[in-house]
């Protein structure tokens, strides 16, 4: 925050004159004290002449002046910063930069229904400051969180307006609902894409049960608390931040060009089928299309934020607006978001306070065509993408749609209006007691218009007649998704300190309701003119509407006690009772207790004389956490209605069919909560006068009765052949370490470097009924098999042990039908044939280690920040390569596969000969998923104040930033960061299939230039 108060600086100046006259025998030393990272002036820093009682503090602009002997040493101390001693050495100006101590013991963290000082915590909570997030040109705060907190894995996508996947301490559930709970100013949500990063004050990550259990029913995946900024009385501050840049694809996969493609397919076909050339010279038109080139663009990204804040003793305000533009890398893809936030606080009487924190978001998305990426991967390079205004006819050649045409012939727009806010009344009837009632609201309205233009497979659209890519009737689809939820919290907090005992007791109840209404309307033959895009403009009888909805309620009671003795011994105990309408009456309620203990060893008297530790604290906790994050009412058997069958005569005389029903959905009426119990032991420490600080945590999390969709035999007749039931136990054990070193060299160089690393071991301990879970298939083969004793989504495959080089090898093998160049699979059971019994486990996507490295460095007015993130030990199944053979045989291949394929002239043991059909699922497709990525690199320069003062600008910083600058990985796909697959995978299987990479959305990098201005 940049601020200026002219009044105060004049006063200080007068003071300075006065002191100067009064103590003429000493010299006057003056200067400005600023923060190392954001260069903001620090008010209230105490300045002391060493060995005396002479001292002062800095004013609101961070200035000080003090009279001291010319050889004096000045001591600068400030809460939350590392103290510095600087000898004056006859200088009259000492501008000091202070570095914040990473171990900010007095830092206040948000703990859910309250706050606590970090030194009093018994649980594992990590806090990230808003400034650190706002620095990065990303839409969602969680994207910027990557690498900053040990044990938090963030997986973001290159597509604009996509929610990043967040995994806290591993995946604790097999179902879709593995994302943490977000609490934005008290409002529960699972989507924070509406929150402007510039409005965020802090993000607190509740990692262990002691911290999270107060959110009982939804805390099993961890809780992320987002607190937005408020105004401060007395200061009127205006800030303006802006950046502009572009986003481009990186790590593109090279696909084969026309020659390579033709050669590969013809060679493959010699081994198969009729043996003739698949691609004959007559099919070659001279085109050599790079389909990714054809559909990609460089996207513009920009964001601007303007905020006003301030207030009086009676009321404070924080008003902020933001405008974000994010063009994707696919032609036509664009997202814009306008945000407005008003956070006010009114002190009505001494005892009564009212506050509101409201945000409004307006988003507009021109959607990307996701199948265009898949089709760009598949489309043959020998077909032109577009010549003049005519498109190459890929479907005529090989049944893949021309992706460029698919993009050009649709117009999809989604509009979102969302209001999220919280109104609270705080009443303090007596000293120490706060009664709080708050109502949170989340109103979210989404309207999408998807229009498909009419085009025929004729010569007005295509270069060649025919094929099956066409849209004979224009289509219009209107979607309206209305979401409404409210949450009402009533809490009482009582704080009391009696001598060395301090207590905080919390009790409360909450009620929560959610309702949604989704309407989809379709029509055909709506004219292409945008003004007519209404369902009624379609041809008669072509309209249809479908309408569905959802509703669920929750009700909870909670209590917590924090007890501390002499700042040494700490206890936190919490209890929450949760009821949810999502389960049947018998299994509706569950109870979530937790206990945490802490010992501030460094506060013990026996530690008083030691110089090694500046801080040392031991923590331990246990708690139960729940997860009801599944669709509503799955325990109730419902009927499939409107199943038609025609009776009664000739087709042309038919009226309506008879509508039947089916009772086919198999359900588990005993469905109940997923309950996670978690142990955590932690050590917080700081050495060398807080220069080196860190935290170690060990945790052991176990989810009992994990909900899973169990694949069931077809004989039950279930339409999707699976049933949701509590049939698994999943455990995550891990170790987290984070270290921060902060120091400065001389006056000009300041630096801070922080690293964190987390190890997690994911394991399925028990599957009821002993039935392993099979992941989705590629072609004929289920790729993953999740079973007892292994991590979720383990690959279950044949093992590739080489490539047949000659007939002799084949004769000696279990693959008598093979030919030279084929993959040799291990005949695991030695029965002389290769089949499913030869499959074994070969790792999973779950990384063994995740790590981050963050640093900042400043030299005079220049600053540099960087953040790395990496994972180690995960494996990826390159599904795109594997799926090729199951699609049309004319699909393109990756250039490296075509180039390195086995031929008699290029014998090798890596890439098999040219093939057309699907290869069995084997380790041939498994690759290392390790990567190290430079998430963000920012270089900034703060303009000298002398220049700015004339323009009445308090401070001005310009910066260059690069997001996702490079990724070091051996993975050959688009990105080793896999969001659950865009194509194919069903949502509920996302965790089983996460490592199977079918995603063809290229990852992106962003370069941007920006300014921060404070008035």
């Amino acid at each position, binding site marked *: 925050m940049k601020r200026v108060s002219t009044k105060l600086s004049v006063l200080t100046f007068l003071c300075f004159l006065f002191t100067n006259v009064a103590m003429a025998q000493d010299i006057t030393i003056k200067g400005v004290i600023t923060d190392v990272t954001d260069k903001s002036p620090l008010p209230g820093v105490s300045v002391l002449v060493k060995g005396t009682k002479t001292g002062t503090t800095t004013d609101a602009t961070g200035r000080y002046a003090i009279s001291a002997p010319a050889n004096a040493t000045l001591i600068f101390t400030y809460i939350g910063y590392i103290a510095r001693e600087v000898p004056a050495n006859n200088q009259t100006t000492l501008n000091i930069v202070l570095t914040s101590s990473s171990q900010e013991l007095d830092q206040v963290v948000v703990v859910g229904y309250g706050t606590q000082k970090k030194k009093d915590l018994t649980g594992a909570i990590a806090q990230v400051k808003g400034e650190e997030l706002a620095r990065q040109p990303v839409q969602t705060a969680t994207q910027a969180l990557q690498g900053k907190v040990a044990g938090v894995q963030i997986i973001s996508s290159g597509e604009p307006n996509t929610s990043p996947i967040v995994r806290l301490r591993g995946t604790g559930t097999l179902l879709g609902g593995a994302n943490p709970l977000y609490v934005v100013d008290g409002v529960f949500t699972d989507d924070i894409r509406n929150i402007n990063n510039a409005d965020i004050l802090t993000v607190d990550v509740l990692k262990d049960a002691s911290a999270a259990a107060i959110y009982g029913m939804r805390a099993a995946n961890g809780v992320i608390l987002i607190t937005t900024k408020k105004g401060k009385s007395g200061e009127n501050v205006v800030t303006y931040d802006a950046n502009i840049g572009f986003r481009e694809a990186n790590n593109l996969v090279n696909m084969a060009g026309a020659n390579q493609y033709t050669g590969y397919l013809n060679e493959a076909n010699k081994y198969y089928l009729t043996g003739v050339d*698949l691609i004959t010279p007559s099919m070659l038109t001279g085109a050599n299309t790079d389909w990714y080139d054809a559909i990609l663009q460089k996207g513009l990204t920009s964001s601007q934020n303007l905020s006003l804040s301030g207030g009086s003793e009676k009321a404070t305000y924080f008003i902020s607006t933001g405008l974000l533009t994010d063009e994707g890398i696919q032609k036509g893809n664009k997202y814009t978001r306008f945000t407005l936030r008003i956070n006010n606080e009114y002190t009505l009487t001494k005892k009564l306070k009212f506050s509101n924190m409201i945000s409004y978001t307006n988003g507009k998305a021109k959607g990307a065509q996701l199948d265009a990426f898949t089709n760009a991967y598949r489309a043959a390079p020998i077909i032109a993408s577009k010549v003049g205004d005519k498109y190459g006819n890929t479907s*005529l050649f090989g049944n893949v749609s021309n992706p460029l045409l698919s993009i050009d012939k649709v117009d999809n727009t989604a509009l979102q209006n969302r209001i999220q806010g919280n109104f609270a009344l705080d*009443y303090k*009837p007596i000293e120490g*007691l706060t009664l709080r009632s708050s109502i949170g609201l989340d109103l979210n309205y989404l309207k999408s218009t998807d229009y498909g233009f009419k085009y025929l497979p004729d010569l007005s659209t295509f270069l060649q007649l*025919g094929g099956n890519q066409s849209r004979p*009737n224009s*289509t219009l*689809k209107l979607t309206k998704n209305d979401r409404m939820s409210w949450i009402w919290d009533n809490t009482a907090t009582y704080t009391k300190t009696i001598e060395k005992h301090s207590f905080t007791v919390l009790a409360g*109840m909450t*009620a929560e309701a959610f309702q949604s209404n989704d309407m989809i309307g*379709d029509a*055909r033959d709506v004219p292409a003119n945008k003004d007519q895009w209404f369902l009624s403009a379609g041809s008669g009888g*072509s309209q*249809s509407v*479908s309408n*569905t*909805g959802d*509703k*669920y*309620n929750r*009700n909870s009671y909670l209590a917590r006690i924090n007890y501390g003795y002499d700042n040494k011994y700490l206890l936190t105990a919490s209890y929450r009772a949760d009821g*949810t309408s999502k389960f049947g009456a018998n299994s*509706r309620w569950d109870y979530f207790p937790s206990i945490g203990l802490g010992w501030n060893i460094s506060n013990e008297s026996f530690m008083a004389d030691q110089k090694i530790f500046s801080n040392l604290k031991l923590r331990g906790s246990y708690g139960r956490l729940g997860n009801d994050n599944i669709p509503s009412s799955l325990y*109730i*058997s*419902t*009927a499939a*209605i*409107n*199943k*038609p*069958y*025609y009776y*009664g*005569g000739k*087709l*042309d005389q*038919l009226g309506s069919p008879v*509508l*039947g*029903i*089916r*009772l*086919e959905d198999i*359900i588990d009426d005993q469905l109940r909560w997923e309950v996670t119990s978690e142990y955590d032991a932690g050590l917080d420490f700081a050495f060398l006068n807080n220069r080196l600080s860190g935290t170690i945590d060990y945790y052991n999390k176990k989810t009992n009765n994990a909900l899973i969709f169990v694949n*069931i*035999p*077809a*004989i*039950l*007749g279930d*339409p999707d*052949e699976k049933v949701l039931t509590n049939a698994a136990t999943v455990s995550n054990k891990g170790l987290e370490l984070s270290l921060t070193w902060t120091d400065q060299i001389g006056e000009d160089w300041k630096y801070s470097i922080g690293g964190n690393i987390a190890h997690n071991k994911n394991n399925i301990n028990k599957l009821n009924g002993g*039935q392993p879970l099979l992941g989705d*298939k590629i072609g*004929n083969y289920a790729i993953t098999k999740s079973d007892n004793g292994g991590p979720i989504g383990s690959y279950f495959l044949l093992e590739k042990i080489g490539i047949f080089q000659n007939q002799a090898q084949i004769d000696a093998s279990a693959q008598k039908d093979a030919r030279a160049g084929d993959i040799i699979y291990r005949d695991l059971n030695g029965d002389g044939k290769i089949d499913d019994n030869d499959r074994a486990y070969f790792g999973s996507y779950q990384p063994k280690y995740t790590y981050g490295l963050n640093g900042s460095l400043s030299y005079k007015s220049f600053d540099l920040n960087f953040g790395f993130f990496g994972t180690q030990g995960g494996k990826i199944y390159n599904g795109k390569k594997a799926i090729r053979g199951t699609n049309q*045989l*004319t699909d393109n291949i990756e250039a490296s596969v075509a180039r390195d394929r086995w031929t008699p002239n290029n014998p090798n043991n890596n890439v098999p000969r040219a093939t*057309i059909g699907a290869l069995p699922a084997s380790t041939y497709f498994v690759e290392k998923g390790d990567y190290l990525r430079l998430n963000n690199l920012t270089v900034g320069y703060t303009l000298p104040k002398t220049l700015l003062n004339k323009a009445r600008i308090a401070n001005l910083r310009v910066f260059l930033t690069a997001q996702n600058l490079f990724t070091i990985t051996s993975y050959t796909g688009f990105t080793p960061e896999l969001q659950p697959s865009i194509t194919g995978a069903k949502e509920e299987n996302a965790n089983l299939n996460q490592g199977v990479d079918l995603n063809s959305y290229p990852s992106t990098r962003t370069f941007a230039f920006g300014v921060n201005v404070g008035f």
Partner: protein
Amino acid sequence: MKKIFYITTLTLIASVVLIASCKRSFLDVPPQGKTTEQQALIDPDAADKLVVGAYNNLYLPGTLGLKLVVIADVTSDDSDKGSVSTDNGFDGIFLDNFTYTPNTPIFNDFWVDNYKGIASANKALSVLEKSTIDVGIRDRLSGEARFIRALLYFNMVRTFGGVVKLTTVPTFAQANNDEFQTRASKDEIYKVITDDLLYSVANLPAKGAAGAIVGRASKGAAQALLSKVYLYQQNWQGAYDMSKAVMQQDYDLAPVYADIFREVGVNNIESIFEVQTGPYANQTASGLACDAVSKNYSNFQGPRGSFPTQVIGGQTYIGDLGFGLNTPSANLADAYQPGDVRKAGTIIFTSDVATTTLWDGFIIPKRPDVVNERYNYKGYHSPFLETKSCLGINDKDSKPKNIRVIRFAEVLLINAEAAAHIGQDAMTPLARVRKRAGFTTTTSATIADIWKERRLELAMEADRFFDLVRTGQAAAVMNAVGKPFVTGKHEVFPIPQKQRDLSGGRLTQNNY
């Protein structure tokens, strides 16, 4: 001070109690926009609707639709995979060449869809058992459900041999019992089929009788299917008697062979059981869906290529007719004798010198604009002159094409074959079939003659492969056309690996 404290505390407690007292209703939220099973069964027509729901399964591609066609026709000597060489044709490429494996998806699709049908028939039967509706209606509905179950089991047993026997509705927990996870023997499955059909014969009304509704399973349908089942069991007397019983009812051969497979032939005098389709549109989350058709049944065997846009009677049709799969083989085309009207009724012949005009005026361009030399005429559904898809003329996926499951000509041939075995009159029924085909004289009615007639009469109607296996001709016939059929292996297809995995290996594999 204290007063305020107490008041506030009391208010808080009061509000907590208030919410707590109404928590029961607050947390009782019924499913939104869905009919629960309980609500569905309150409906007095529930039993009838459940049987309709069971019939609805006959639209699935894996019951009587295109997957059955791939298994029974493409595998056989009658038909080739078709389309372009790079098209795998719903796995037809593997079945045509005998390179399929237990993992070839079509087997799982077929297994799944048939058990969907069987399970919904079972569910309907379990509700009917407890139902208090009129006994006559109850027994008729039970007869229909059992007919559907028998029909699906018959296709299952012919495809896989013994399969899981399921005639009840096991709970989710019971389903894991060995009883439901292991294969019953082929004979046990046949026992289920014959029991079901005997029940249907006893309880279904005959065609035209009181209570009979066109399109529903009738006594005649059950008898016709049972006579065919007996043929597979070599119960010649049974087959003879049952076919005779059908012949005594209101069925006859349609005068024009080609008309049987067009809309004019829907539910005609020759029809005994067919899948009844229509242009009904269901409103789903993804728009209108044609839910009363066998998806892609006509489309997948429609002529393929680069076709010009055609306008007939003011209606514009764009592009080709389908995927061009399941094309009649040259061997089949050559099997017809001169003068056999069935050849032109079964096969669309294309030409590399001239266009081909279909019965409705549709013009197929010459090769290579049209890809294959022959197409299945029986699968053709006119875009111009027959009922359109619920999504309009240019939606090829959802043409309402009825699938002829069993018709009177086959009953005559069953009767002839059974008669030949038991020394009864085979000549008359055989001659009746041949006469319509254009042959006025029939001089011989040997088993071989009847088999040959079956092939030509029923070509491309998803029967040939099973018939070759039944008659023991499979190896000889297939090998003669270059198909590597191995006796003792290829008579049945592999049990889908996925289902074997789900059974924990308790489902045994055939010889694969």
